[in-house]
Every structure is written in C-alpha cells, then in structure tokens.
C-alpha cells in the first residue's frame, strides 16, 4: 500500500517535471517559466521542476563507555540512515514560485554498550531510542514573490545564511547548526517571514522568525507560544512567553568586498535571552587574486551558556536544579564571538580552508573542570547525560540527523578543511580537523569520495577523536579529560551512497 502510494506520487511528480526536460532553446525555458517570450506574450503555464536524491549512510562506531562520563546507553555501534529527498519548485509566474525540500528519513541503531560496576565495557540490551525513529524533515517549504525587481517577499521555512564562515557561522542565530565536517549535509532552515530589497550595490533584509516549539513529522503544532494546556504525556507548558526573533541586515558590495551588518532582537528564540539585542558584522574578500579572507563576528551582552556551580561541583550535596545555570545571562558584559578564516585553491585544484573561532563566553579551565565534575557525579547518580548541552535551545529544530554537531565549550578553536579532487578523475580525498586550542584536543575526519556516475557518489568517512596532550586537560577523580575526550567513541567509519535524480 505504502509502496504503491510512493510510486504514484513519484510518477505524478515526474510527469509534472517533464516540461523542464529536453529544453534546447531559451524560448522553451522562458515559456516554461511563464516569462515573456521573444514575441512578448506571457505564458500562463505552471511549471514544476523536481530533483533530489536518495542517500544511504551506514556507520560503525567503536563505543568506549570508559572514555567519557557521558552515557552511551543510547548510542548504537551500528547505525543506518536512509534518506529520500525531493526538491520541488513550482513556478507560479515570472514573479512567484513555491519551493519545497523534503526528506523522508528511515533510521535505526543496533549494538549498544555501557560499562559495568567495575568500569568494564559490556553489551547493553537492544532498545528503542526515540531519536532513531523514522521521521520527515521539511528542510525548506516557502513561497516567494517579487512584485518589483527591487522587492522580494518570502514566507515559509527556509535556510537563510548571511555570514561568510565556511565551517561555522557565529552570526547564524536562526538555523539548525551545520556539521563542520560535512557542511553540505544540513539543509534544514527555520520558519520565517522575510522582506528583502536588493539593489545593485546593497541589499536590505528584514526578517521575523517565530520559534517552532513543538512539531511532529515536520509539521509545527506549537509556534511562538506554548499551548495553555499540557501535552498528552503530561508535559506542562514551560512558560507563557512569545518566542521569536527579529533580524535586520544591510549587505554592501564595497571595494570588491562583501560586507554585512546585522541587528538581532530576540525573546527566548533558540536560547534564554529575553528582549535582547545583538549586533554583528561580516567581511569577505579575495586578496592577491587567489586568497579569500573572511571575518564574521557577533556581539552580545550576557551569555545564555549554562555554567557549573563550583560549590555544587566540589561539594558532596548538590541540587541538580542549580548545578548548571545561566549565571552570566544578565551580567552586563559584552561577549564577542569572532570567526576569522581564509580559503585558497592551489594549482592542483586542491582547496584549503582555515578558520579560527573565538568565543569569549567559553569555559575557563576551572569552569570546564567543574562541568566535568558535575558530569561524573550525574553519571554516578544514574542520571542520564546523553545529549548533554551547555547551550539550551528549547523548541524543536526538526533538523536532519548529523554525525557531528559543533557545540564548543571552550574559547579558542581551529578548523582546517582540505579537499583534493581528481586524485584519479572521479576520486576526491579530503580531511577536516577541528581542534580545541586550549587543550589541543579535537576531531579528525578524513574522507574519500568516488563519483562513480554523474548521478552516483560513494563516500567513506572516518571520524577520529584526538584526546589531546596532557596540557590544558583537567583532572577529575584521577582521570584527565580534554574537551574532545568527552566523545565516548574511539573511532567511527561511515559509508555513504548518494544517488541524484
């Protein structure tokens, strides 16, 4: 039944897409898009264009429960993610179109491990993990209308990125975070209404983003404000606030340089800030023909990061409710987040990207040590530490499942990315290194890809935590920890096959 439905939908979409094929002249393309042909007549035909991909990712991780105080009970050694993606663009007229980018995800995980009372690695029974259930991700779903060449209106779900950062964007307060080891992967945006005024040398953008608080199968059912009544599982509304973000942006092309200036005003949108303003800016330009330089910075007053309570961390008695709290939320201090990076392509067509990231609200050594002490205590008390985060977002991102999310705890980071195509025609090798400069720990993600056909790419990725050297690490219960030693895996391999249509 399900298969028949899928086949029917696929055939319908392919039939819609047919007019986009076999276009051998500009008139055919313009007529299909409803634009005026050379003869001046405007076609009223609605065109649907379809493309997308089917992607299978199978990965094996060597789970090491003894390496980290983070619980591994819900982390499978074997994981399968099958994604069917469809991108549909329906052109309504020469001035308007509807676009959707939807992924259907089947996923599952097997072979769990935990440690026993003596700290030994032991099998943990197979069980259901909510985050590994199949789901639907509407990464984008919007309608856009340009009544004038200098005016564009957009409403719906869209991934909008303004900053030039390659692996990471500190000024991106809107979207689900991307995976720096695979920036192509995260496609999901957020629900927004945007007005944009593009001109030759500058663009003005204004955006309103209500936060999705609850959603199911990618469909929101609580937006901006929690319902007044509890959910069926008894969950009570956390607050009665309005969760939203307003953003304004001025883009300038000046002296061959991309310059952005940002202003954000938010209330409990993806973080704990209430009625709070933030400012940002960015710069991107090529120097000496081949060397791109970019800077992206965000300035905020206070920090929404959760900091450990020192007395709680070192004491014998601790109230879990106050163990981690946003103690710098209203301290009046300006906390900048700055990314500086560059990119160049060498004569052999290999590309090197280097980015340095500084966040002034990252943990000091003592705060990091206290954070680890609390993690160890929580683990010893049987409290789950899976998915522990120091930057609570609230709401629901509805994003694609990533193999790695950059959620930095400390202050200084280096991200290196190198890609060398055409090792042998269709073979590409690459590596991404994310290094915490405080304790020299990090992750190394080498990869090799083969474009076996124009429509098929096969890739093998490695993912290796580098636990660092005994400088800058902190010691808890006679065990030394660095930031990336918190990852409870020794290595991970991922095989991906992606077929485009």
């Amino acid at each position, binding site marked *: 039944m399900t298969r028949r439905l899928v086949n029917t939908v696929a055939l319908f979409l392919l039939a819609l897409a047919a007019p986009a094929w076999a276009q051998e002249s500009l008139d055919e393309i313009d007529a299909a898009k409803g634009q005026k042909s050379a003869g001046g007549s405007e076609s009223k035909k609605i065109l649907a264009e379809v493309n997308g991909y089917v992607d299978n990712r199978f990965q094996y991780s060597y789970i090491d429960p003894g390496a980290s105080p983070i619980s591994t009970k819900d982390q499978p050694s074997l994981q399968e993610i099958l994604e069917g993606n469809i991108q549909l663009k329906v052109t309504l007229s020469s001035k308007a179109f509807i676009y959707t980018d939807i992924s259907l995800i089947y996923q599952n995980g097997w072979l769990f491990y935990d440690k026993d009372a003596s700290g030994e690695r032991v099998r943990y029974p197979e069980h259901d993990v909510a985050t590994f259930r199949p789901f639907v991700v509407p990464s984008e779903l919007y309608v856009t209308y340009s009544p004038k060449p200098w005016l564009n209106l957009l409403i719906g779900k869209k991934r909008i990125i303004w900053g030039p950062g390659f692996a990471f964007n500190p000024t991106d307060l809107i979207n689900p975070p991307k995976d720096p080891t695979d920036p192509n992967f995260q496609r999901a945006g957020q629900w927004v209404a945007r007005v944009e005024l593009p001109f*030759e040398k500058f663009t003005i953008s204004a955006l309103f983003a209500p936060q999705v608080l609850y959603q199911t199968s990618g469909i929101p059912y609580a937006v901006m404000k929690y319902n007044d009544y509890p959910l069926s599982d008894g969950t009570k509304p956390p607050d009665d606030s309005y969760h939203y973000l307003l953003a304004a942006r001025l883009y300038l092309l000046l002296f061959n340089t991309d310059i952005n200036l940002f202003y954000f005003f938010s209330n409990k949108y993806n973080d704990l800030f209430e009625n709070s303003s933030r400012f940002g800016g960015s710069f991107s330009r090529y120097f000496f023909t081949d060397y791109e330089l970019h800077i992206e910075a965000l300035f905020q007053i206070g920090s929404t990061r959760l900091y450990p309570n020192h007395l709680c961390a070192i004491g014998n008695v601790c109230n879990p409710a106050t163990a981690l709290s946003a103690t710098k939320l209203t301290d009046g201090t300006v906390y900048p987040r700055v990314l500086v990076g560059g990119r160049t392509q060498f004569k052999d067509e290999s590309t090197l990207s280097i980015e340095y990231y500084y966040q002034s609200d990252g943990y000091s050594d003592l705060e990091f040590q206290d954070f680890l002490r609390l993690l160890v205590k929580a683990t010893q008390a049987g409290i789950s530490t899976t998915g522990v985060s120091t930057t609570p977002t609230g709401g629901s991102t509805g994003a694609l499942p990533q193999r790695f999310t950059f959620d930095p705890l400390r202050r200084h980071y280096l991200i290196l990315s190198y890609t060398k195509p055409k090792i042998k025609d269709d073979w590409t090798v690459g590596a991404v290194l994310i290094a915490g400069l405080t304790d020299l720990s990090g992750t190394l993600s080498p990869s090799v890809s083969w474009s076996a056909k124009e429509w098929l790419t096969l890739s093998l990725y490695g993912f290796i935590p580098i636990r660092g050297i005994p400088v800058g690490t902190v010691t808890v219960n006679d065990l030394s920890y660095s930031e990336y030693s918190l990852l409870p895996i020794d290595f991970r391999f991922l095989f991906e096959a992606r077929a485009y249509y």
Partner: protein
Amino acid sequence: MSRIAACFALGMALTLPSLAMAGDPTPMELLKRYDEVMSPRTFDGLLTMVAHRQDDTTRSYKFRALKSEDDKIRTWFFEPAAAKGQEMLRVGDNMWVYMPNLKRSLRLASRESFQGGDFNNGDVLRVNYVADYDAKLVPAEDDKLYLLDLTAKTKEAAYDHIKLWMTKAERQPTKAEYYAASGKILRSAKFEDIKDFHGHVRPAHITMRNELATKRYSEMTMLDLKLNLAVPPQKFVLDDLGR
C-alpha cells in the same frame, strides 16, 4: 581567463564581410572584435559543456548564461542532476557560486576550474580581453590568419599569456593557446562551427584541451544565443542567487 571569453565572443562575429577592409587592423581593434564576437555586451545563452577525462569517460553539463554590461554575468546549471540548482555570478572582479546543498553562496577565484572541467571560471564568467590584456600583432604562419600575442595586464586575468589566431576575412577566432607566467603551455582551444544565432555570428563549438594532461579536454557548445536584452540589474546581485 578568457579562453571561454574567447569562445563566447568568438562565435559572435563570424560574418561581417565588410570588415575585410584595406590594411591590417590594430591589435586592439582585433581584440575588441574578439570581445564583440565571443562576449557581446549583453546576451542570454544556453550551453553545454562535456568534460572528457583521463580515463576516457565524460561528464556533461548544461547551463544558461546571462550577461549584462561588460562585467556582469550569471549562470544557472540544469544538468547533471548533481549540479542542478547551482548558480554562478560575476560582477566586476567578484565571483560567487551558489551551492544548493549548502543553501548559500561562496566567493570564487577566477582561476579556479569551472565545474572541474578544462575551462576555468574566468574563461566562462570573465570574457573581456580588452580590459585584461595588452595585445600585439605578430606574424602568423598562415597568411589567412592574424596572430595576436596577449599579455595579462591585470591580476584577475585568467592567464598570463595568450596566443590567439583570428581569420582575416571574417575576423573570427580559430585557435588559441594559453600559457603560464613561466611560458609553459597550459591549455589550447579550437573555435569551430560558425553559426548565426538570431543575427549574431560566432563559433558555436569550442574545444579546450588540457596540455598538462593531454587526454583531458572539454567541449563547450552554444545551443542558443540572444542579444540586446533588457535585464534588470537585480539579476546580478548576490542575494538573487538561488531564487
């Protein structure tokens, strides 16, 4: 930078017999003619590029190129499926690529490879030889051809040195060689299949051969071409990419 420029523009100017005037033209007149043929001030073109690789396999691309004024050009990729939705934009010395998988644009350098083929971005997106090169006329072995010796005068030029052959009768490009600063030949191009596109005559087919990997070459074919269009300037702004 401008092999493609050459290719683009080349095709445009094939016919004008009236150009066979008495006396040789100046090098800059020929260069200007090349730009008029291969990259007229405004045009809208539909093209294919087939990249032949070292292992004898091919990769095919189909894209649309829209040019406005002397230094604005935008491309939309339709094929293959893996590249569908990609767009490229050049405004002056600035180039960007819109990656649909990233849902965003990135800056590009003009000397980077165009879609991994044997043309580079400058070949396709930056065809303005008059602005980028100094030219001198040198003797050609074939007395039916002019031979131009071009030297880059800007850092943004795609090549340091170019030898360009044009027919004396129609003043259409027929062949080009592209060199590094060291004098090493990097690529060579052949301009063929002169066609009339709605009144504009130019080579419809350009073969760009990689002289460093001799089995590799790319063919670019102009399927359709229109000139003298009224295009809103907003088609050439960064924020319009992806729309």
